[in-house]
């Protein structure tokens, strides 16, 4: 028999449902197979030890401690009734706060003039900002129109001069190029 088959039988033995014939097979195999015999001895010994490990006594006062923990947590537990009480309490508080805000806080603010002061500050700063934006646009468009006028004058009054000076510039360049080329040839 193969060692592997014996291994399966050993598991059956440890499960506690092995037949006498199968037990004989294990014994016979182990007589001729030292490694299986050793493994069987170690494992069955270990399992036997594990099965025989003694139960230890439960610590003194265990039950009382569990019961008091349960009572303790019950005091703080969220039962449906407690959740309902919380909801009612919070709803009452919310209604109270709304009333306070509507009938005490808002009138007080109104009468103290804080609102008017805040409004004035807003209007003042708003004016400064809008003026700055307005100035930017006015100055920008004025500068642009001046530039356009300058271009028109340049084109209508000094057209001949502009064309002539461009012509002179091109001619001068061509002259320079030519002299350079001549020099290279020499």
């Amino acid at each position, binding site marked *: 028999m193969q060692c592997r088959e014996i291994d399966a039988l050993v*598991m059956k033995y440890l499960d506690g449902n092995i037949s006498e014939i199968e037990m004989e097979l294990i014994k016979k195999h182990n007589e001729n197979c030292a490694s299986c015999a050793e493994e069987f001895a170690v494992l069955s010994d*270990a*399992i036997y030890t*594990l099965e025989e490990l003694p139960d*230890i006594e*439960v610590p003194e006062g265990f*039950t009382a401690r569990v*019961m008091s*923990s349960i*009572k303790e947590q019950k005091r703080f537990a969220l039962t449906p009734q407690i959740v309902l009480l919380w909801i009612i309490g919070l709803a009452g508080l919310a209604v109270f706060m709304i009333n306070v805000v509507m009938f005490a806080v808002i009138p007080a603010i109104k009468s103290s003039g804080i609102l008017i002061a805040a409004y004035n500050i807003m209007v003042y700063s708003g004016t400064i900002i809008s003026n700055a934006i307005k100035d930017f646009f006015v100055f920008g468009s004025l500068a642009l129109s001046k530039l356009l006028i300058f271009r028109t004058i340049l084109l209508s009054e000094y057209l001949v001069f502009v064309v002539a000076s461009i012509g002179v510039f091109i001619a001068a360049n061509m002259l320079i190029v030519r002299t350079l080329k001549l020099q290279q040839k020499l």
Partner: protein
Amino acid sequence: MAMSLSASDLEIINQCLKGDMGQFEVLIERYKKLIFNTAYRMMGNKEEAEDVSQEAFIRIYNSLSKYNPEFKFATWALRITTNLCLDHLRKRKGETVPIDEQYDLGDGKLTPEEEYIRKEKQKLVQNAISKLPDKYKEFLIMFHHRNLSYQEIMDITGESLTIVKNRLYRARQMLKESLMNTERESEKYAMPGN
């Protein structure tokens, strides 16, 4: 506590659910040994075992309304306990926790030498078990230490028969290998130069 100690688990649970909290004490008394010892073998020391079993009982109390009478109460209670043990073991990954010496007084039938050998063996096995991966340790303890059947282990863990058998097989193999390694190592130290 008017209820007699012979009342069935289910009767007691129903009393608890009706608001008679004191009845739960009867259940604790009935199952504390099972719960505590299972936790003890899983955790390896008394302190953690007590913490876990207390937590387990509190959890059991809080979920009594979810108890399904189709299963035995012990099965359900063990399910909660082993899950808690696994949680705790997962949390303590990396930390080293001392393993208790055996609290075993023996039965007086053995000679002092035999008693010593037995204790050493217990220590070795307990050590090897504590080193197994949690999910294998759990199956080994349930089957071999608590003598639970395959069916009960299936109910407790919610795993299939194949998985239960497989885990148990692997667990035994690992236990064997671990013990044989320690044996070899101790031989090495015992016979220097060989």
